[in-house]
């Protein structure tokens, strides 16, 4: 009596729905509100400490940064705030600040059982631990220390040498966390500040402690237009770079570069500009490539010409006899 096609279609729909539900079940109660927009969580900004060790094969100094990022961001996005980071198509990090210079061609280079690669470390606990996840899968939180050490070459397991600077969040993010203790705990910073500071922008925020007040929702969205990002970027105060000797208790031999990115609207009602400056900084870092367009244009014209000719010839019939 019932139309079999109709019943079959209903059964298929029910089966699909059941399978979808079964797939969602492991996600727990969160699955009940599946399409929760996570972007709202970007209201808070946190400060993440980043240590970049360029390895023994480079003359570059180890870099320590303290960057503001939205709380919904990942370590990969925090790293890109002040650095130009190169990823290959599979998402493997190949270069930081254009080091190594031949990273594009030799991202997965090996030497015996060792690899030339950027090793990724978690330092939040106070000591370095070899990350068992990727930076794109590691969400940021206040107090995080993210470490990068270039293995030149080194083993691809936790026996690889960690960054040469100890993960000291209080020291790296001193200007933001507790400015009064900076002078007492780390004399190295204060002694070189007079010669190293290139801008007067740091003192303007050093007095305001970090608060966790929620930001207005209008300011939490990152900018999508490169034009507006560029204009914001032009008004971004420059980062201050302070060259300090290795911190007490660490085993570094060379000097350490200490970078602080000032947050434009820090401590005031508008936290949005801080994020804007971050994305503007990444835009500035990624947009500067001096490759010539001429070969690309020429080859593009050749491709179009060949394709057009092929289309025209395709439409004609080949001769029969």
């Amino acid at each position, binding site marked *: 009596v019932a139309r079999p096609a109709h019943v079959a279609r209903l059964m298929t729909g029910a089966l699909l729905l059941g399978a979808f539900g079964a797939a969602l079940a492991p996600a727990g109660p969160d699955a009940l509100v599946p399409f929760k927009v*996570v972007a709202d969580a970007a209201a808070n900004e946190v400060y993440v400490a980043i240590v970049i060790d360029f390895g023994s094969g480079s003359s570059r100094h180890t870099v320590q940064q303290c960057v503001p990022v939205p709380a919904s961001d990942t370590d990969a996005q925090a790293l890109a705030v002040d650095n*130009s980071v*190169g990823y*290959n198509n599979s998402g493997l990090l190949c270069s930081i600040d254009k080091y190594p210079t031949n990273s594009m*061609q030799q991202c997965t280079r090996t030497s015996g059982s060792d690899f030339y690669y950027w090793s990724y470390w978690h330092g939040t606990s106070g000591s370095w631990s070899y990350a068992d996840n990727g930076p794109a*899968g590691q969400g940021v939180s206040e107090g995080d220390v993210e470490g990068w050490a270039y293995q030149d070459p080194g083993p691809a397991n936790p026996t690889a040498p960690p960054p040469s600077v100890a993960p000291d969040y209080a020291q790296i993010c001193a200007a933001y966390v507790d400015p009064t203790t900076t002078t007492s705990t780390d004399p190295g910073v204060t002694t070189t500040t007079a010669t190293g500071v290139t801008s007067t922008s740091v003192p303007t925020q050093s007095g305001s402690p970090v608060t966790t007040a929620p930001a207005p929702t209008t300011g939490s969205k990152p900018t999508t237009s490169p034009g507006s990002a560029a204009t914001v970027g032009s008004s971004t105060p420059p980062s201050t770079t302070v060259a300090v000797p290795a911190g007490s208790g660490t085993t570094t031999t060379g000097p350490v570069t200490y970078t602080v990115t000032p947050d434009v609207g820090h401590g005031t009602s508008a936290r949005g500009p801080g994020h804007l400056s971050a994305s503007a900084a990444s835009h500035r870092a990624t947009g500067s490539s001096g490759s010539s367009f001429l070969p690309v244009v020429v080859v593009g014209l050749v491709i179009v010409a060949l394709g057009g000719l*092929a289309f025209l010839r*395709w439409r004609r019939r080949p001769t029969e006899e």
Partner: protein
Amino acid sequence: MILPGTLTAGRRPLHPLAWWCWAACLAASAMQTTNPNPFLLLLIGAVACFVTATCRSTAPWSRSLSFFLRLGAFVIAIRVVIEILFGLRGLPGHVLFTLPRLPLPSWAAAVSIGGAVTLESILIALVEGLQIAVILLCFGAANSLASPYRLLRSLPAVLYETGVAVTVALSFTPELIQTIGAVRQARRLRGIPTGGLRGMRGVAVPVLEGALDRSLQLATSMDARGYGRRSAVGSASRRLAAGATAAGLLLAAVGVYGVIDSGSLFGLGLPLTAVALILCATGLAVGGRRMARTRYRPDPWAGAEWLVAGSGLATLAAMALAHSLDLNGTVVFFSPLAVPPLPLLPVAGVLLSLAPALVVPSTISPATPRPMRTELQGATR
């Protein structure tokens, strides 16, 4: 029965192996890296299309290319859609739009559904799809240009041991293209829709069935004509041939794995592969002795064949050289975003593969455009 395309008045069809070599080299050039330069990929695709459009014959399978073009476009679209829905999130980039994100438990951290879609990830998906599409296009070019029947004739004698399988495998795609045209034409003449989902369903089953039937028919007819005939040899020789081939293939599977992943198999990859090759060669040689076969009018391998195969090999060599020299622009990243540089060597190498279009005599008649409606073409012929 005269197979279409086997007789072409005025010019000799090229040896099919020459076309397959040319197309395989182009495909291998596109496969050199997992981070390819999109402009080089497009150039390879354009060259393959141009040569196919110029050198194709009137054979029914010569229109295979358009099928593979559409398949390639479908592959790119699927790749981009999957990237948008399930792509890797959390990497920095220029956010285009944000999809609602499905929260997943921590043990499923490697999987992401929804989230912010960046321009970089879309570009990467486009290029990865393009790479597969170009490889498909090279396969389509070979299918369009080379006669599957002639290719079968030129296979080494030993492979007739597995003659039926080889026949079915090699002639399936051309037969598929042919059958699609026939079924669609028949449905159109009867006024049944050919487009849309309903039309697809009506076409798919007869097409698959028909293509398989025709391939099997070809294999049967070859068998009936004595292609798989074997002369009387001892059972010991037969066992040796079968055993050596099977062991060789097994060892090759293991050995190639060792060659690709240098850390595995305790460095035994290369020796294992060498032993496997020797075993396979022994099996083929012993098995080949059993074949007593004459060849009627064998396809010659002359200057034109050398040129076609050589141009493909030159392209591959130029590409491999550019990669081993680490030329800037052979491996392209999209994060950070930049216009990729284009090195001259691989571009010139790919353009070398245009040589067949200049040398192989063109079959295009300059004055006769295709008729508007093609349904009745078969009837008027």
